[in-house]
């Protein structure tokens, strides 16, 4: 079973494992993005994620279809959480099942890379000093 979802709720890894289970699969790869306490050396208190939900879910689905086509993924779960997330929390989950491990790693890696490139989701850093900044805002993150 495939799942493509933008959610405000905690991401349930156990249920993703049930969704990708398949007797034809010898391999499952999962990638979880978690909220880190720093970004490029500056301390952070957490992240806020916003999304354009209808288009984001469509784009997650397109990425999942690509992973099935290109890597033979049997099942794909792509979930991104939005809202205010404290340190340590899972913000994004990529889970795939495949026949063998090579394709599982390749599909999971491409899954997160394509999410970061293409899905209309944005994150705001809550810096340790109390300031906030949207990533990729040229005023907040000047070109180096």
């Amino acid at each position, binding site marked *: 079973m495939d799942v493509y979802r933008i959610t405000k709720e905690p991401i349930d890894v156990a249920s993703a494992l049930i969704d990708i289970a398949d007797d034809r699969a010898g391999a499952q790869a999962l990638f979880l*993005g978690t909220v880190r306490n720093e970004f490029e050396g500056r301390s952070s208190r957490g992240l806020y*994620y*916003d*999304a*354009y939900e*209808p*288009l*984001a879910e*469509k784009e997650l689905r397109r990425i999942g279809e690509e992973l099935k086509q290109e890597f033979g993924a049997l099942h794909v779960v792509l979930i*991104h959480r939005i809202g205010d997330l404290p340190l340590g929390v899972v*913000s*994004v989950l990529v889970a795939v099942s495949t026949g063998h491990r090579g394709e599982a790693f390749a599909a999971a890696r491409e899954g*997160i890379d394509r*999410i*970061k*490139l*293409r*899905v*209309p*989701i*944005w*994150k*705001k850093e809550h810096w340790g000093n109390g300031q906030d900044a*949207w*990533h*990729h*805002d*040229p*005023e*907040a993150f000047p070109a180096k």
Partner: protein
Amino acid sequence: MNPSTMTVHTLFFSFAADRMNGRHKTLDLPQGTTLGDMVRQYLEPALGPDSRNWLYSVNEEWASWETQLKNGDEIAVIPPVSGG
């Protein structure tokens, strides 16, 4: 509404919403306006020249510069994404 104009709904996200002081704007545009026309004439003055390189969607699907806008369209302004 003037029959030679149309009304479109525009959504802003991330720092584009900050620049616009809001996540939603309603614009009245001349009939025949393309997405590219709208970005250059109505959005670029507020969002800056980088906005020409951003992505846009019309009615929840990616759209090109040449897309003809229609009355009631929902246009989303997609500055560089940063999910993950």
